[in-house]
């Protein structure tokens, strides 16, 4: 394959915009993921803030009910698909190759493609705000709210198609990380020597690979119903809206673990580092993660207790749901045992990790409460559920992610963040978070339903709603502090050396920021906390065991940048717009597919490196 069709000279931009557009370096892609997802997180946060302001007092009229419906739908969709998942992906990208002792991921160009496709999906979804109104049927899109009869606008179509595009991005990334973790580990790094974050990424990727096709099929069926008048969820011809609920939650529940397992991995990295102790019960934590992922497939109908599935399914799903709390509890106890008797260094990342344990446990306990079907019947669709999901998703996933950003900030940027502001950041966030979401427990038990745009003064909900809105403002402030800290430290922070935390894992064994090729020489791994072992001179008591397959060669060839990943993504997004508008616009879709095909062919015929 020496002569290349579509012969466009290879991009060779070491710096500037084009270097980012054509990059296939996992570290740069990680940064792109992180920054983009954070911007989208802020958008989702502003949507939430608008809702909180609307609900601050009774009978307010700041946003209309129609806009309110769009706000909560887009808030949920944005936070899950455009913020938490890609923030996790940012860590996968930046950290995984460094942790396993590889120079890049297995398919660097596919990795770039994942990022650009994710960006395209995000633009597609958010463009609906300006093109006739965003989707308004809730992030779960229950039939028949999504039928053309109920919902003639194209907001739903934008939602369907952009979730498909995002699904492509997530699947591509998941395949990439599975192959990377299976094939690219440094010699000696057996599965049971992998850092915990790598383990959780691996499990998350497997979950993604298995869960996303289900939502893909459900969305295809919905799209066919809406566009071609088929009968999947059409009650008049015998279709059953409950099938949508099943398909959605068969995907949706594993998705919950897709969101939380990476956060658990981050916490499992931070705690031992700052407690100066190895993780307590490493193999138990790994096993608990795997069991959670496996059992995550057996609990989905607990989202549907009030549908009326009958006593036997309800009992079965109650039991499985309660059982899944056991491996989660095991993890929490392992983390506590890790810090027990450790010589703790209370740096900002540790504070966030400890905050995670506290808040996630509260969310877990309220989760057990509605695992009980009879009690769930009272709580279904009330603010109690809102409180629960935000304790696990905000108190869990987001707090851990922010902690992870502080933890790896020196490695990513080569500079230290401001420790005092970092701690302040944690406390403001911790107080704000509890102020917003704890009163929602009371509101829920008091019967306030979710997704209502206003309420009457005599309902008795005014006080706690006011408190909650105040908390939302505090929470917003904490993110302003965060942004300030990150931006100023990135510009003028103190230079960080390679290993500011006395880290345990391989990413701390190189300079900060890491060189483009990561490892000058692929390390050999003899122990679980490989870098600790090496620093403490315990390297020669073991022999490397099988597993991993680092390259032998010593001259470093890095794959060259490429235009084609972004071309394929652009084709995909054009096709997406065509599908949204359907009818004659299918021609646009065909054009997009054509661009994508050209991109795929050019990509396949492009050698990884030009011949020298």
């Amino acid at each position: 394959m020496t002569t290349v069709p579509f012969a466009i000279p290879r991009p060779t931009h070491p710096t500037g915009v084009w270097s980012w557009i054509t990059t296939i370096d996992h570290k740069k892609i990680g940064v792109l993921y992180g920054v983009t997802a954070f911007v989208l997180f802020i958008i989702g946060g502003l949507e939430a803030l608008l809702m909180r302001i609307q609900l601050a007092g009774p009978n307010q009229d700041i946003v209309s009910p129609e806009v309110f419906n769009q706000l909560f739908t887009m808030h949920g969709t944005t936070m899950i698909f455009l913020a938490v998942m890609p923030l996790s992906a940012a860590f996968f990208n930046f950290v995984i190759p460094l942790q396993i002792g590889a120079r890049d991921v297995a398919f660097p160009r596919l990795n770039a493609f994942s990022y650009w496709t994710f960006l395209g999906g995000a633009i597609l979804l958010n463009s609906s705000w300006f093109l006739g109104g965003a989707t308004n049927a809730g992030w779960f899109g229950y039939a028949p709210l999504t039928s053309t009869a109920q919902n003639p606008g194209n907001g739903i179509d934008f939602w369907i198609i952009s979730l498909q595009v995002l699904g492509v991005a997530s699947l591509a990334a998941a395949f990439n990380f599975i192959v990377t973790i299976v094939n690219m580990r440094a010699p000696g790094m057996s599965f049971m020597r992998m850092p915990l974050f790598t383990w959780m990424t691996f499990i998350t990727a497997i979950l993604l690979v298995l869960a996303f096709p289900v939502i893909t099929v459900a969305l295809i069926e919905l799209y066919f119903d809406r566009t071609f008048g088929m009968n999947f969820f059409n009650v008049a011809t015998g279709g059953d809206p409950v099938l949508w609920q099943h398909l959605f939650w068969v995907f949706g529940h594993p998705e919950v673990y897709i969101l939380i397992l990476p956060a658990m991995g981050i916490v499992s990295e931070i705690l031992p580092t700052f407690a100066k102790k190895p993780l307590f019960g490493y193999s138990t934590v790994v096993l608990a993660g795997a069991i959670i992922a496996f059992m995550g497939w057996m609990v989905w109908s607990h989202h549907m207790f009030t549908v009326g599935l009958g006593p036997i399914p309800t009992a079965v799903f109650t039991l499985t749901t309660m059982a899944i709390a056991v491996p989660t509890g095991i993890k929490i106890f392992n983390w506590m045992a890790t810090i027990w008797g450790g010589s703790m260094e209370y740096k900002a990342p540790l504070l966030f990790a400890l905050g995670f344990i506290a808040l996630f446990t509260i969310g877990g306990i309220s989760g057990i409460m509605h695992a009980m079907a009879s009690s769930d019947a009272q709580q279904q669709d009330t603010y109690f559920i809102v409180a629960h999901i935000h304790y696990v998703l905000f108190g869990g996933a987001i707090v851990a992610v922010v902690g992870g950003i502080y933890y790896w900030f020196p490695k990513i940027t080569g500079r230290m963040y401001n420790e005092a502001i970092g701690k302040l950041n944690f406390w403001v966030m911790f107080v704000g978070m509890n102020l917003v979401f704890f009163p929602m427990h009371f509101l829920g038990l008091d019967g306030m339903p979710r997704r209502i745009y206003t309420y009457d003064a005599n309902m008795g909900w005014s006080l706690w709603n006011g408190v909650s809105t105040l908390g939302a403002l505090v929470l917003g402030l904490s993110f302003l502090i965060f942004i300030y800290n990150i931006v100023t430290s990135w510009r003028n922070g103190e230079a960080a050396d390679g290993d500011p935390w006395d880290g345990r894992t391989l990413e701390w064994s190189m300079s900060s920021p890491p060189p483009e090729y990561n490892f000058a020489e692929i390390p050999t791994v003899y122990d679980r906390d490989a870098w600790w072992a090496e620093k403490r001179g315990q390297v020669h008591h073991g022999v490397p065991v099988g597993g991993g397959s680092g390259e032998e060669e010593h001259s470093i060839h890095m794959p060259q940048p490429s235009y084609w990943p972004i071309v394929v993504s652009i084709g995909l997004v054009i096709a997406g717009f065509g599908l949204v508008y359907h009818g004659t616009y299918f021609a646009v879709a065909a054009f997009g597919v054509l661009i994508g095909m050209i991109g795929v062919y050019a990509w396949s015929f492009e050698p990884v490196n030009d011949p020298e």
Partner: protein
Amino acid sequence: MWAFLGSDCMFFGSLIATYLVYKNRSLSGPLPVDVFSIPTTSVSTFVLLMSSMSMVLAYAALRRNRMKTFRIWLASTALMGMTFLAFQVFEFHAFANHEVVVDCTAPIGELTALEQSVAADCEPGQHEIEKQVGLTPRTNLFGSTFFTLTGFHGAHVTLGVVWLLSMFFLSFKKGAVTPEKELNLDLAALYWHFVDIVWIIIFTVVYLFGVFPGF
């Protein structure tokens, strides 16, 4: 690749689940028993199975560096894939234009549900009635689920044919398809076999079970 195939299992699993859940829930005909022709589909199933064999033979030939044999087997694989697709197009067309002829004098109990609904239109004294009752994705739940499931399988076959043909034409370029690069062909082959085993399931679950009363 295996991870991708595991993922695709879930894709077809969901489609098959939808099909089965909605089986026997259609409110109107035609139903599988009205339109399926087992002999025709058996032939196309056989063709697809044989294409899997020629695929492995192509792979074996490439490993032994017998380029000519390799090309013959690869081309016949793609050709059989196209034959299968032609069968599918023919079948979809036949379903969409399905016609029934009902004897108006026959006792109701001997007629299928679809025939009964057609017979309801018999004028007094009429002996025979002929009516077009096509099955399209819009007709009923069976139509929606059946065409979506088999249609996506067909799309997979189409993609496979494009992939195989690309490799076929590429093989005329020197050094593009060689025994050292057998992994590229291996991946295409794995995909092709996967599409085949999905069809093994569809043939049994949708076609054979479909016509069997009481399932």
